[in-house]
């Protein structure tokens, strides 16, 4: 790839858009540079399941034509983006990381994709993920794992490891992820990138292949807080097709990202999200980042959210229950693969054979847990009880936000572990999500941003900022302040330290 091309892939989204708007570079050149980068490194990273070169270049050319015609371009026009393969995109393979959807090309666009197209964002392709978003390492993808660009033997996080890896390997400056229990934030943490789970209902779920309906949210991912904010503003907002969508204006996230002022802000450390189980280097970098916030004028106190200790248990009842129902439609009758239809077998058998062959082990495990938790006789004790824990967690957050403006914690207990290390131990795998899950249960919002490398392994550490429901702008304000201070300290963004691929 040319030097200019390489330079283009190192730029932030905001700078790319500005360069295109000025005419310094064309959208086609930008798209091509990123496609070249993908061709160069994705054999090793495996972030992408499908690259739509033709579509991307066509979209880029159209944007160039618009600019030549003097039409106004939005703040992200011509910027390339990697789309998690869980979002429906018309005519483009959408697999949700599963064999059961192999070859499926949706006849419709998700609302998020429609808004990206309307914002003239150039979608490069679909990224790898744990199957049906169930996982924290992308090892449960039916199409092979994605490799962390910081160390190719390690996981990039999950379920949205492909999107995070695409950012960290400079294959795209923007990505879309989805977050049900941390699937945007945890990959962001282990890849040294930024990811946000918006307030539940902030971004439309229409066209998002559902995992757990009451927990899922699509969200923006990028390498900088400002880029993440620009993407957030582009995709968020009320959608009448999504009955859980918030009918209010999008929070002023971009303005907050450009403010970055924490003087007088009250910041709470969540006592339950620390201590045993947290890697020493993670705790160390976290403490340093909190001290930095203090030096920037924030007031830091410890708060207790006692029911967070039950969050994992509640999550692992609610998610499988909803998922077992959401995944019932994958039966080989109307779309996706069909297995075992030899003209003799009945429909029940063909459905069962299709699902057995099409779903991976983790998916089957969770479907069965969910089927069990909803069964007659068990509903009240399992699913019903778990929904009560949700109320208790919401109350914990409410009480905390009486005392502080935002909460912080390490995003994940450890840095990126090795591929294969935890894949056979579901409980160990589930513990990756212990810090991120409470926010999904309560429905409020959170961000992960990079705060340094752990001394013992040189791998990225993320800090999680949590804010009240609909207070998404606070995330960007605090994140921007911290990012700026860290950049001042290091002279560059952390991601610049990622090894060259």
């Amino acid at each position, binding site marked *: 790839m040319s030097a200019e091309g390489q330079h283009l892939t190192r730029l932030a989204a905001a700078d790319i858009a500005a360069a295109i708007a000025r005419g310094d570079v064309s959208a086609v050149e930008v798209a091509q540079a990123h496609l070249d980068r993908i061709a160069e490194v994705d054999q090793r990273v495996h972030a992408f399941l499908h690259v739509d070169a033709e579509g991307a270049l066509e979209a880029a050319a159209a944007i160039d034509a618009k600019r030549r015609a003097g039409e106004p371009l939005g703040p992200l026009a011509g910027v390339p983006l990697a789309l998690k393969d869980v979002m429906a995109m018309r005519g483009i393979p959408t697999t949700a990381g599963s064999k059961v959807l192999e070859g499926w*090309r949706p006849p419709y666009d998700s609302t998020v994709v429609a808004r990206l197209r309307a914002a003239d964002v150039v979608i490069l392709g679909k990224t790898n993920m744990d199957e049906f978003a169930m996982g924290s390492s992308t090892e449960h993808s039916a199409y092979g794992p994605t490799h962390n660009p910081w160390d190719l033997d390690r996981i990039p996080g999950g379920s949205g490891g492909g999107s995070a890896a695409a950012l960290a390997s400079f294959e795209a400056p923007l990505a879309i992820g989805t977050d049900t229990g941390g699937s945007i934030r945890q990959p962001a943490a282990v890849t040294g990138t930024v990811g946000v789970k918006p307030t539940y209902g902030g971004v439309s779920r229409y066209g998002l292949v559902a995992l757990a309906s009451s927990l899922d949210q699509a969200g923006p991912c990028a390498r900088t807080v400002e880029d993440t904010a620009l993407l957030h503003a582009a995709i968020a907002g009320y959608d009448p097709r999504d009955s*859980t969508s918030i009918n209010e204006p999008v929070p002023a996230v971009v303005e907050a990202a450009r403010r970055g002022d924490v003087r007088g802000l009250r910041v709470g450390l969540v006592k339950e999200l620390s201590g045993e189980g947290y890697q020493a280097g993670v705790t160390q970098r976290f403490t340093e980042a909190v001290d930095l916030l203090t030096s920037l004028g924030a007031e830091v106190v410890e708060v207790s959210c006692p029911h967070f200790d039950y969050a994992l248990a509640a999550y*692992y009842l609610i998610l499988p229950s909803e998922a077992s129902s959401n995944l019932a439609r994958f039966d*080989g009758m109307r779309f*996706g693969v069909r297995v075992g239809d030899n003209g003799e077998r*009945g429909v029940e058998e063909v459905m069962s054979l299709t699902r*057995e062959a099409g779903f991976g082990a983790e998916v*089957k495990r969770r479907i069965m847990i969910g089927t069990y938790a909803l069964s007659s006789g068990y509903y009240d004790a*399992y699913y019903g009880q778990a929904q009560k824990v949700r109320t208790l967690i919401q109350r914990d957050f409410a009480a905390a936000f009486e005392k502080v403006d935002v909460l912080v914690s390490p995003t994940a207990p450890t840095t990126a572990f090795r591929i294969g290390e935890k894949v056979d131990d579901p409980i160990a795998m589930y513990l990756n999500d212990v810090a991120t899950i409470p926010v999904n249960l309560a429905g409020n919002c959170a961000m992960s941003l990079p705060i340094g490398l752990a001394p013992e392994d040189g791998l990225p550490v993320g800090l999680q900022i949590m804010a009240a429901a609909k207070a998404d702008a606070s995330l960007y304000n605090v994140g921007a302040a911290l990012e700026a201070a860290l950049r001042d300290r290091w002279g560059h963004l952390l991601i610049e330290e990622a090894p060259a691929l």
Partner: protein
Amino acid sequence: MPTISRDEVAHLARLARLDLHDDELDHYASQLDVILASVARVAEVAAADVPATSHPIPMNNVLRPDVVTPGLTSAEALSGAPASDEGRFRVPRILDEE
């Protein structure tokens, strides 16, 4: 602490239309057990008077007007079908009448 039997796993698999092999039945029985022991924790904490939360952001009465909006053409609808015939989805023999 309830443990899950192989038969119960088989029953769950039938309900969920998963054609599990014999060795999978044993494998999942132990895995489900381990996880269910963990999740029985929720029983410890939520008292009877705590209301359940099914929607994180409370809202009521989200309704849409009774108007026709554009949908898919039949070609689009059938585009993903593993099998189709004369504009309809073709599915294997149904043995059970609903």
